[in-house]
C-alpha cells in the first residue's frame, strides 16, 4: 500500500522533471542565447549607425561590461569571418595557379610583417572620410585592424594544406571526374580542416592582442574610440580606476574562456574527423558543449528539416539525363586560368602603383633618416632577441616539468592556453607602473613588455614538445642512469628542438608586433617612449608623418623577412631533418 502510494507520487513528481532529464533545458538555453544575441546585435546596430561624437562617453560600472564585452567579441568574430573568406580565396588562388603563386606567397610573407599601426592610420582617415556622419567608418577600421592580426597565418596554413594533399587522393578525384567545386568541398577543404581549426584558434588570440590599441585609437586630438572592452580598459586606466581595470581583465579572461569552450573546442573536436589516419595521434578529446548541442532537440529538428528540404529539391529538379561521358563539363576549369590571369594583372598593377606611391613618399624623407631607422632596427632586433632569451630561461625548465608529467600538463595546459590568448597590452599599465617605481626606463622596460606577450608561445610549444617525447626514449635515459644534465642535453633538448624553433619563431613575430606598443606607451599619463623601430612607427603614425611611417614600416618588414629567411628558415630545416622524431 505504502509502496504503491510512493510509486505513484514519486512517479508523478519524477515526470515533472523529465523534460529536464531529456535535456529540454538545453533547448531553453539555446533559445535564451539566441535572444541575447539578437538584443546585442540591435545594440550594435545602434552603435554603428549612431552619429559620430567628438568624444566617446563610457560607463565604467561593471554592469555595462557585458555590453562592451559583447561588442568586442562581435568585432573579433566579424574580423574572423573576414579572415576566413580572405583565407579561402587567397590560399586557393596561390595553391592552384603556379604563376600567381610566385607573387602571392612572398606578398603574404611581407603582409605578415607589417605592423598594425601602418594599416590602421591610413585606413581610419580614409574610412572616416567615407562615412563622416556615422560610426561605420571607425567600426570598419577596427574590424579590419583586428583582421590584420588574424588572417595571415590561417592563409599560410590553408595554402600548405592545399599543397600537400596526397597525389592519390587527387588522382582518384580526377578519375571519378570531380569538378573543381566537388574537389574543393570533398577533398581539399576536409584535408585542410584540422590545420585550419588549430590556426583559427591561434589567429583569434593574435587578433585580441591589439584590441586595446584598436578600440582606443586616438590620432592627435581626434578621438576614434569605439565602445568595447579595450576602450573600457583604457578609460579605466586614464581615470586610474583600479576596480574597473580589474573588472575589465576579468571580463577579458571570461570572454576568452567562453569562446574557447563554446566555439573553438567544439570546432577542434569536430575537426578531428577530418584527420588523416596515423598522423598526429591526438587523444580523442571531448567537448562538453558539442555533446550538449548534439543532445539538443531543436538542432536535431533543424537537421531533419534541412535533410527534407534537400530531398524535396532533388525531386523537384528535373532528372538529369544520365551523363555518360562529358569531359568538357568542367567549364569552370577552362575559365579559371583566365580569371586568375586577369586578377593577377590587376594585383600586379595595383602593387606597382602602390610601389610608386611609396617611392614618392620615401623621396620626401631626409637621407639621414635612413641611418637612424637602421640603428633603431638594430636596437629593436636586440630587444626582440633579448626577450626571447629571457623567455627561454624560465619556459624551458617550466615547460619540461609540465610536459613530462601527465598530471601537471592536465592542470596547466588550459591555463597556459588562456594566458597565451590574453592580450598582454591590457596588463601594460600595471607593469609600467611597477617598472616606474623600480626606476627602470622604457629602454629596458620594453623588453619586459614584449616578454609579457610572447613567452607563452614558447612555453606552450615546449610543453607540447615535452609531452610528445616517446616513452621508450625516456626509459633509455632511466635505464642507463643519465644524470639530469645528460638527460637535458642528449634527450630533452634535441627532442623538443622542432617545437622550440616553432615557439621562438612565433614569439619573435609577436615581439616585433608588440614593439610598436611597448617602445611607445601612451595609455596613461605622459607618453613614455624609447629609441627603437616600434616607437618610430607608432610616433609616425600618430603624428600622421606618412613618409616616416612608410619608411619605418619598410625597414621593419625587411628586417623581419630577412631575419626569417636567414635565421629561422635554416633552423627549421635542421629541425625537420635532424631532430624530427617522426622520421
Amino acid at each position, binding site marked *: 500500500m505504502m509502496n504503491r502510494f510512493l510509486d505513484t507520487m514519486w512517479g508523478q513528481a519524477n515526470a515533472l522533471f523529465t523534460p529536464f532529464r531529456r535535456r529540454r533545458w538545453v533547448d531553453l538555453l539555446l533559445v535564451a542565447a539566441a535572444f541575447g544575441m539578437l538584443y546585442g546585435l540591435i545594440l550594435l546596430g545602434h552603435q554603428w549607425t549612431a552619429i559620430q561624437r567628438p568624444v566617446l562617453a563610457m560607463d565604467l560600472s561593471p554592469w555595462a561590461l557585458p555590453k562592451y564585452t559583447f561588442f568586442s567579441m562581435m568585432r573579433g568574430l566579424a574580423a574572423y569571418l573576414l579572415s576566413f573568406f580572405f583565407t579561402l580565396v587567397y590560399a586557393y588562388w596561390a595553391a592552384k595557379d603556379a604563376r600567381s603563386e610566385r607573387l602571392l606567397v612572398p606578398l603574404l610573407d611581407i603582409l605578415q610583417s607589417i605592423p598594425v599601426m601602418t594599416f590602421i592610420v591610413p585606413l581610419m582617415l580614409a574610412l572616416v572620410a567615407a562615412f563622416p556622419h556615422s560610426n561605420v567608418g571607425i567600426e570598419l577600421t577596427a574590424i579590419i585592424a583586428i583582421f590584420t592580426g588574424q588572417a595571415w597565418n590561417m592563409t599560410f596554413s590553408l595554402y600548405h594544406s592545399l599543397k600537400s594533399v596526397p597525389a*592519390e587522393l587527387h*588522382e582518384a578525384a580526377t578519375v571519378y571526374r570531380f*569538378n573543381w567545386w566537388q574537389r574543393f568541398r570533398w577533398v581539399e577543404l576536409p584535408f585542410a580542416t584540422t590545420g585550419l581549426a588549430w590556426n583559427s584558434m591561434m589567429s583569434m588570440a593574435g587578433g585580441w592582442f591589439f584590441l586595446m590599441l584598436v578600440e582606443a585609437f586616438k590620432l592627435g586630438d581626434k578621438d576614434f574610440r569605439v565602445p568595447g572592452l579595450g576602450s573600457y580598459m583604457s578609460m579605466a586606466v586614464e581615470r586610474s580606476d583600479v576596480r574597473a581595470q580589474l573588472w575589465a581583465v576579468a571580463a577579458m579572461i571570461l570572454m576568452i574562456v567562453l569562446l574557447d569552450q563554446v566555439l573553438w573546442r567544439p570546432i577542434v573536436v569536430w575537426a578531428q574527423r577530418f584527420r588523416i589516419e596515423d598522423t598526429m595521434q591526438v587523444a580523442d578529446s571531448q567537448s562538453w558543449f558539442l555533446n550538449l548541442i548534439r543532445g539538443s532537440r531543436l538542432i536535431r529538428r533543424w537537421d531533419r528539416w534541412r535533410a527534407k528540404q534537400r530531398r524535396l529539391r532533388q525531386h523537384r529538379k528535373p*532528372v*538529369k539525363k544520365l551523363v555518360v561521358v562529358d569531359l568538357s563539363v568542367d567549364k569552370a576549369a577552362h575559365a579559371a586560368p583566365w580569371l586568375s590571369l586577369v586578377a593577377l594583372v590587376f594585383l600586379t598593377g595595383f602593387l606597382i602603383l602602390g610601389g610608386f606611391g611609396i617611392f614618392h613618399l620615401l623621396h620626401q624623407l631626409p637621407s639621414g633618416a635612413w641611418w637612424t631607422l637602421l640603428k633603431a632596427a638594430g636596437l629593436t632586433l636586440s630587444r626582440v632577441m633579448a626577450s626571447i632569451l629571457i623567455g627561454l630561461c624560465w619556459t624551458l625548465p617550466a615547460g619540461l616539468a609540465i610536459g613530462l608529467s601527465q598530471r601537471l600538463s592536465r592542470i596547466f595546459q588550459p591555463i597556459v592556453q588562456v594566458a597565451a590568448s590574453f592580450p598582454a597590452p591590457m596588463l601594460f599599465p600595471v607593469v609600467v607602473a611597477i617598472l616606474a617605481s623600480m626606476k627602470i626606463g622604457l629602454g629596458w622596460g620594453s623588453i619586459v613588455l614584449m616578454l609579457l606577450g610572447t613567452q607563452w608561445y614558447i612555453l606552450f610549444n615546449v610543453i607540447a614538445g615535452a609531452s610528445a617525447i616517446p616513452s621508450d626514449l625516456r626509459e633509455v635515459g632511466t635505464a642507463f642512469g643519465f644524470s639530469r644534465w645528460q638527460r637535458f642535453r642528449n634527450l630533452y633538448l634535441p627532442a623538443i628542438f622542432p617545437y622550440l624553433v616553432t615557439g621562438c619563431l612565433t614569439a619573435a613575430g609577436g615581439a616585433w608586433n608588440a614593439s610598436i606598443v611597448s617602445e611607445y606607451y601612451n595609455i596613461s599619463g605622459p607618453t613614455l617612449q624609447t629609441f627603437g623601430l616600434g616607437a618610430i612607427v607608432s610616433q609616425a603614425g600618430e603624428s600622421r608623418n606618412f613618409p616616416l611611417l612608410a619608411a619605418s614600416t619598410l625597414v621593419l618588414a625587411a628586417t623581419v623577412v630577412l631575419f626569417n629567411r636567414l635565421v629561422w628558415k635554416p633552423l627549421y630545416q635542421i629541425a625537420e*631533418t635532424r631532430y624530427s622524431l617522426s622520421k
Partner: protein
Amino acid sequence: MIHATDATHEVICELKGIQKSFQRDTGHPLRVLEDINLDIRANEVVCLIGPSGCGKSTILRIFAGLIQPTKGRTYYHGKKMEGLNPGVAIVFQNFALYPWMTVESNVRTVLQAQGLDDEIIKAKAHRAIQLVGLEGFEEAYPRELSGGMKQRVGMARALSVDPEILFMDEPFSHVDALTAEGLRAEILDIWDDAERNPSSILMVSHDIKEVAYMADRIVVLSANPGRLRTIVENPLPRPRDMRSPEFLRLVDQLHDIITSTELPDVEVTAPAPSLLADLVEPLPPAPSSDILGLLEYLETQGGTADLFQVAAATHVTFEKILASVKGAEMLDFVDTPKRQVLLTPLGQRFVRANMDDRKDIWKAQLLELRLFRLVQELLELHHGELKADELLAELQQRLPMENSEQTFETLVTWGRFGELFAYREERGVLTPE
C-alpha cells in the same frame, strides 16, 4: 566462358609509340618509358610486371589519361584520346579513400560527381557495396577498417561507376597475403560475369604468382628506361589452382623470363663502358647490408642456391633479391649461371673473413668499378670535400637514361661500408675516411 584472345576480341584502348620523361629538379629529364606499344582488348585481364622503376604505374596512368605522354598516342575504341579515359575506374595502391567519409559516402561521392539522380545513386552504391561484401560496414570510417576491408571499399567505389575497364595499381601490396588471395578470386568472379562491366582488367603487380593467377596476358617490362620486354600469353584454363603443377611451371617460366631480362648471362643491356670512356656503371637499389645478408645466406646453403628459392625461403620480394644479386655480381662475389647463384672463391673468402678483412676486400672490389674510382678522383680534386649535388650532377652526365639518385643512394651505402668515404647528410658532403 572462355577468355581466350582471338581475333573477334575488340581492342578497347591502345598505346602507340609512347615515350615519357619526367622533368627533374636537377635539370636533366629522367626518361621512364621508351617506345611502348600495348593494347587492352575486350574480356581480358592484362597484367604489367617488372622491376621497380620500369614505369608500370606510369603506363597505367597514361592509359587512364591521368598523365600525358611525352611522345606517342593513346586510343580509345579506335579514336584518339584527349584527357581522361572515359571507360576507366582505378583501384589504388594506398586505397586513396577519403578518411573523413564513411564507407557509403566514399562510394556515393563518386556517383554524385557524375551528376546522377539521388535514387540511382542509392541503388548503385548499394549494389557496389553488396558486390564486394561490405554490407553492414556502410557507416564505418576507413580508419576503423583493416587493409583488406579498405581495399574492398576502393573496389566498391571503382565498380560503382560501372567502368568498362578496371585499373588496379598494385592493389594488394598493402593487404595481408591471405586476404589478398580471397580478394583476387572475388574480383575475377565479378569480372567473369559477361553481362556486366568491367569487361577487362588492367593490373600492375610485382608478385609473379598473382600475375600468373590473374592474367590472360602478362606484359613483362624492363627498367631504366621502361621498355616492353615480352608479352606472355597465359594458356591456363580458369579457375586456376595456385598449387597445380601446370601453374607452378608457368610461374617458373615467368621467373626465367624476368631473370634473363634482369641478369642476362651475356652482358647486353648495360651500356658498354669500354666504348665511352666517361660512362660509369649504374648501381642497383641494393644497400650493402642486403648484399652481406645474401652472401651469408649463400654460405649457409653451401655456396649455391636457386634464385627463386632464395626469395621463397627468406620472404624477401623477388625484386629485392634480384637487385642484391646484381650488386653482388658487380663486386665479383657471386656468379649467376642461369637461375643459380653461386659464391665465387672471392665471395667465399669475403664471407669467412673477419670484419676488418671484409672491409679491405670490399674496398678493393669497389675500386675495380669505374664509378668509385671517379668518386675518389673527384674527392681529391675538391680537396677532400665533395658536395653531394656536384656528384649527382656528374652522375647524371655519365649515366644517361638512368635514375642517378638511386645510384647515388647505393653508392653511399657501399662507400660507407668500404670506408672509402664518409657522407654527412645534413651538410650534403662526402669526405674521405
